[in-house]
């Protein structure tokens, strides 16, 4: 019953989408300042029905209504309540419904936010956004309806993959999707601004809070996925350059570039076409992310369910949207030659361009690395793997110039800045970063010439970002975000260089030495929980200072579906994470034990949260 209601509301939404597009097209010529009441009403109704439809699925999940095939495939009566809720978006069909919900919600908020703006611009944005909404509605109804039913009604569901039953992963999709979907609004409104011929400071001022908002959610969404991979997959890494991770990083690079460029458009009324291109590219990358993940053409740790026909639909739709955007640009974009003027080499404008230069380069590395193997296989039938070494080799050497540019960028003034002959502070900062890097390296066993330069450059960035806090011309959100970013980079680098790991097979009672530590496997015990049985290991790690740490990692065997997972035990403090995970090898006797010592791990997460916090301050500031 409830599934039928949900299904019908989606059909209503589709009709509304058609209505809105037709009505808006009719009213575009209207010069009235007031937003047409009729369209506002239909959009509100559409929002209501999407929320209603989403609630139907939510109720079906919570009440374990197995006549619904989505619920049957992904839920189970014994599943904890929290994961029944997160199960709604923990699958393909439900996650698309969530996409749709955010799409419609954002359009509604956009209308509320732009009360005093030109009607033509608003109506055009509504049309483009509704085209996207319509595409998603058809996609959901035709290929992935979450409300399909099953008869006879099964007594029990199949359950949710246990590695997805996790708090970080439960909130990861909604957060990431808000980021993705936010870019759709940037896409729609940028095309509207092109047609309306209002790609200017005014528009930049209005749209930039949406850019920041999407960026904040995308940043946090990526972080949550990464935290999950860190403790749940149990390999101790937090980024694997896995295709599914890469597709979330690509729009991030693009959006970060846009975030800086939009400020140039606002302050200097320049880089118009480039801003539009970035807006379109960001959304296309978000869409192709969905396509790549859902089509199943990627071989990935995160691919759980897929179906080629869905991929074809999204790909066709994506091409349609890009084609539409190109046509709009071709017909309406003003000739940039007349309006554009060159930038002085020492100006904030140039600094932003340099930022964009590096962002686009990193984007191209990740993009090519992710899709190249797919194309190669299609054309030559040869399969290659592009893994972490590729990304590291192409990205790390470029980090040093990037850090140095970023150290100076924020302090450069708009239009034209003057170079001081001798900048004593800068020399002091430079020498101090060399000294700190030297101290770090003499106290460690690792010594590669290149990593020492890299560390020195990142310390240089940290010190300069710290110094920026005393600058009056830089705004607070920027100070916080840039400083957090520099801390993020430094933590990642130190973590990468100083991580130690021990990987060995052990029996109960074994004691092994690892560098200056002793690892003791003291015992195991069995336990039973609601929806899984578990095997708890008892480990002790004693370091050279006779400090003891106890670890209790678990091996869980879930009932529904029967899958075993390893739960790492992580001891976190401000300076390092200690991490033990174990897996069963054979005969319930021999275990593979992995111990890891990971310095500054917590600072990676803290700095990302601070980075997003800086963005939040900016939104609050611009929202006023």
């Amino acid at each position, binding site marked *: 019953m409830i599934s039928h209601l949900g299904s019908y509301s989606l059909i209503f939404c589709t009709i509304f989408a058609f209505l809105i597009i037709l009505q808006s097209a009719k009213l575009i010529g209207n010069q009235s300042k007031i937003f047409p009441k009729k369209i506002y009403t239909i959009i509100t109704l559409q929002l209501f029905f999407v929320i209603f439809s989403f609630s139907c699925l939510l109720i079906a999940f919570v009440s374990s209504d197995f006549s619904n095939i989505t619920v049957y495939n992904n839920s189970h009566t014994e599943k904890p309540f929290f994961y029944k809720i997160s199960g709604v978006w923990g699958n393909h069909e439900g996650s698309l419904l969530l996409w749709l919900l955010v799409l419609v919600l954002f359009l509604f908020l956009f209308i509320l936010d732009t009360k005093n703006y030109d009607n033509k611009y608003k109506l055009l944005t509504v049309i483009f956004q509704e085209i996207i909404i319509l595409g998603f509605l058809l996609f959901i109804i035709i290929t992935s309806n979450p409300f399909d039913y099953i008869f006879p009604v099964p007594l029990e569901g199949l359950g949710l993959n246990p590695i997805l039953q996790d708090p970080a992963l439960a909130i990861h999709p909604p957060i990431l999707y808000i980021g993705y979907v936010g870019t759709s609004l940037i896409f729609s409104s940028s095309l509207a601004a092109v047609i309306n011929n209002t790609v200017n400071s005014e528009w930049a001022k209005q749209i930039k809070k949406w850019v920041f908002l999407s960026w904040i959610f995308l940043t946090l969404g990526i972080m949550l996925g990464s935290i999950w991979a860190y403790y749940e997959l149990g390999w101790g890494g937090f980024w694997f350059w896995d295709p599914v991770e890469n597709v979330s990083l690509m729009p991030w690079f693009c959006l970060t570039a846009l975030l800086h460029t939009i400020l140039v458009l606002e302050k200097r009324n320049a880089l118009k076409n480039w801003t539009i291109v970035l807006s379109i590219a960001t959304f296309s990358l978000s869409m192709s992310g969905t396509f790549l993940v859902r089509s199943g053409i990627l071989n*990935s740790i995160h691919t759980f369910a897929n179906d080629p026909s869905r991929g074809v639909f999204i790909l066709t739709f994506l091409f349609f949207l890009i084609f539409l955007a190109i046509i709009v640009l071709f017909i309406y974009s003003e000739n940039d030659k007349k309006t554009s003027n060159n*930038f002085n080499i020492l100006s904030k404008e140039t600094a932003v361009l340099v930022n964009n230069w590096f962002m686009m380069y990193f984007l191209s590395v990740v993009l*090519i690395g992710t899709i190249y193997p797919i194309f190669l296989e299609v054309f030559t039938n040869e399969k290659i793997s592009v893994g972490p070494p590729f990304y590291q080799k*192409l990205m790390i050497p*470029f980090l040093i110039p990037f850090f140095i540019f970023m150290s100076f960028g924020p302090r450069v003034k708009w239009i034209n800045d003057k170079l001081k002959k001798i900048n004593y502070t800068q020399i002091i900062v430079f020498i101090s970063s060399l000294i700190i890097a030297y101290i770090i390296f003499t106290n460690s066993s690792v010594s590669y010439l290149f990593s020492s330069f890299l560390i020195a450059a990142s310390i240089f960035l940290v010190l300069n970002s710290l110094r920026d806090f005393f600058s009056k011309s830089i705004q607070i959100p920027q100070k916080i975000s840039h400083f957090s970013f520099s801390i993020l980079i430094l933590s990642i680098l130190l973590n990468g260089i100083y991580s130690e790991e021990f990987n060995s097979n052990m029996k109960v009672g074994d004691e092994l030495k690892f560098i200056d530590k002793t690892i003791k496997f003291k015992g195991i015990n069995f336990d039973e929980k609601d929806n899984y049985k578990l095997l708890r290991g008892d480990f002790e790690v004693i370091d050279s200072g006779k400090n003891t740490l106890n670890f209790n990692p678990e091996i869980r065997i879930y009932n529904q579906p029967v899958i075993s997972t390893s739960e790492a035990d992580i001891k976190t403090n401000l300076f390092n994470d200690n991490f033990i995970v174990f897996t069963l090898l054979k005969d319930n006797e021999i275990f593979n034990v992995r111990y890891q010592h990971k310095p500054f791990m917590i600072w990676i997460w803290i700095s990302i949260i601070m980075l997003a916090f800086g963005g939040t301050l900016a939104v609050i500031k611009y929202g006023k």
Partner: protein
Amino acid sequence: MNNKFNIVYLLIFFIFINYSFADEKIKRIDKVSKNLRCLICQGQSVYDSQSEFALSIRDLIIKKIDEGQTDEEIYDYLKVKYGDWIIYDPKLDKNTILLWSIPLILFIFGGLLIFRKVIIIK
């Protein structure tokens, strides 16, 4: 006396050498296995996986290292047996020339665009 001391010294020396050899060997096994894809897993390396396949590949690596083969020889052997798909670090060859060069070409291209946009004012 002196003789005895020498023997002890030699013993310590050998233990030390053996120890560091063992250490080096583990490091090499880890390094090689991190660069190999576990073919039956989803996106896991041979190092990370505990599957039968990964364990057999690790045994193979140990055997090859004991036979005195270099890392490159081990990779080549596995490539012939399982195809390029198994190596995470794609070699530069006719199949991957675009993979390695496109990002770098784009970087140079981007630099040129910026160079054209920027002027120097004294």
